[in-house]
């Protein structure tokens, strides 16, 4: 499904956005100027040797990459151990929850919602409801309109008592 929503922008707005984004790319390029210099140095071998070896540029890069590599390796070593531990400890035969738990019953839902089971059944069959919550976060029924789905409720002639908000 592809349903992208676009609006028509003014030419000025579009130009400003493109220009500002290009500016940020310029900033990004600024970050990599040492690398660009490296390429330029390549074409001037003597300067390259001077900057990279005699003045220690290459050593600095090596040192940075070595320390980055060490930290990245440590992160993945620790993470890898954690993932393996989880697989061994909780996966396969160690999975202690392999059977599906029973669905929540109407009585359980009624209990947590603060309703009687018959009320909960009627509520679950209503097409339109107006409700509120009391101070215990229990459902308060204000108004309801039944639907075809609530045939059971209608058969049992369950009425929905209006409950006032608790003080």
């Amino acid at each position, binding site marked *: 499904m592809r349903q992208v929503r676009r*609006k028509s922008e003014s030419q000025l707005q579009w130009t400003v956005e493109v220009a500002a984004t290009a500016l940020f790319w310029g900033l990004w390029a600024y970050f990599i100027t040492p690398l660009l210099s490296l390429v330029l140095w390549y074409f001037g071998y003597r300067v390259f040797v001077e900057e990279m070896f005699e003045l220690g540029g290459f050593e600095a890069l090596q040192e940075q990459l070595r320390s980055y590599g060490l930290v990245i390796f440590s992160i993945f070593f620790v*993470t890898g151990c954690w993932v393996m531990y989880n697989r061994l400890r909780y996966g396969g035969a160690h999975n202690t*929850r392999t059977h599906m*738990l029973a*669905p929540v019953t109407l009585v359980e839902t009624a209990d947590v919602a603060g309703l009687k089971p018959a009320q909960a059944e009627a509520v679950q*069959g209503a*097409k339109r409801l*107006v*409700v509120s*919550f009391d101070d215990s976060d229990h459902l308060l029924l204000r108004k309801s309109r039944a639907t075809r789905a609530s045939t059971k409720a209608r058969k049992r002639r369950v009425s929905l008592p209006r409950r006032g908000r608790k003080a």
Partner: protein
Amino acid sequence: MSISMEGVFYFVFFYPLFMAFFWMIGAVIFFIRHERNAHRPPMLPEYPFISVVVPCHNEGREIEDTIRKLAANAWPDYEIVAVNDGSSDDTGKVLDRLAQRVNRLRVVHLDRNFGKAMALRAGAYVARGEYLMCIDADTRLDHYAMHWMMAHMLNGARVGAVTGNPRILNRGSLLSRIQIGEFSSIIGMVRRSQRDVGRVFTVSGCHVCFRRRALHEVGYWSAETVTEDIDISWKLQLHYWDVRYEPRALAWIVMPETLRGLWRQRLRWAQGGIEAALKYASLLQAWTKRRMWPVYVEYLIGAIWCYAWAATVLCWIGTQLLPESWPAAFAVASILPKWTGVILAFVCLLQFTVGLYLDNHYEKGIFRNMFWAIWYPAMYWMISAIATIVAIPRAIYFRGKVRYATWRSPERGVA
């Protein structure tokens, strides 16, 4: 620069770098393990009844389109429970009118605004299904999203929730286009790598499927949290329920297109994160909760990073403005490191490329947005970092004082 300031400085630059590597490799591993070979919606052993719960607050402009798309979903047996959370616009009227035409739709009106968590609770209480698909009022669910999510539910007894892959629907402004890169390069990759580790920080509240048994066991959503999705994710996982991520379950969402809307959204996200961190801090002392430790520690380090970043920038500004009198121990001569800058710039680009490559499987042509991705580090890191810095004292101040956390929908700008 003193040794301690140098340590802060290196932390500020190294942390995003190493996390970027962590996310990239984690995301690629997840892709190879779970996504590479399956592209068609799965054939399921059964197609149980699902209740789709849609909480709405002042969503009169969006809700009709959402319900119409939802009513045409490919899942064979489901109901739609729309919960009008005390809207002051015409959301209630629109829903009542729609309910007369859409047989699957049932409408619940709350008599005042209780917040999203309570609206979801109301929806869950009146819903008939054991599986609750919760989507926002501005979320357009993909035709087969429920198939992908239910495959997890039916195959894993431990699965309590499955979160999907939200995509940006509106692309009419620079802000929304930048967020395309964010959702691919950050959110999608973080979710994938967190699943590799075993626990996720949060589901996407705009698009998530729950097993009612799991919700019932943890006491449903907490009314006092500003981000009910972060809270419920932690509650479920602390009760040993799995939270899965399914990138093939797509949903199209509307993101804020104004700076104020974006700021409010990010502030709320940041506040929700710190609320959860404070509420569940005791898990660090419990060996039985150890699977949540990496998520918790990652969040804490991220929050500390925001303050470290702010301290570094402030020290740099101080050094530039007061070169003579600024204490030498807190002097930062430059915030543009030499080779570190090069590596950061390339890692950033690499991260965008990997993220967009992965999501290109689900949204063809997304690479066109690479041009706009460059804004992300400059703007979103800063906005998110400042939001976190502001949110932490707010979360501490409001802790325990709010009964029902209500919030305004983000300003979306033009439709």
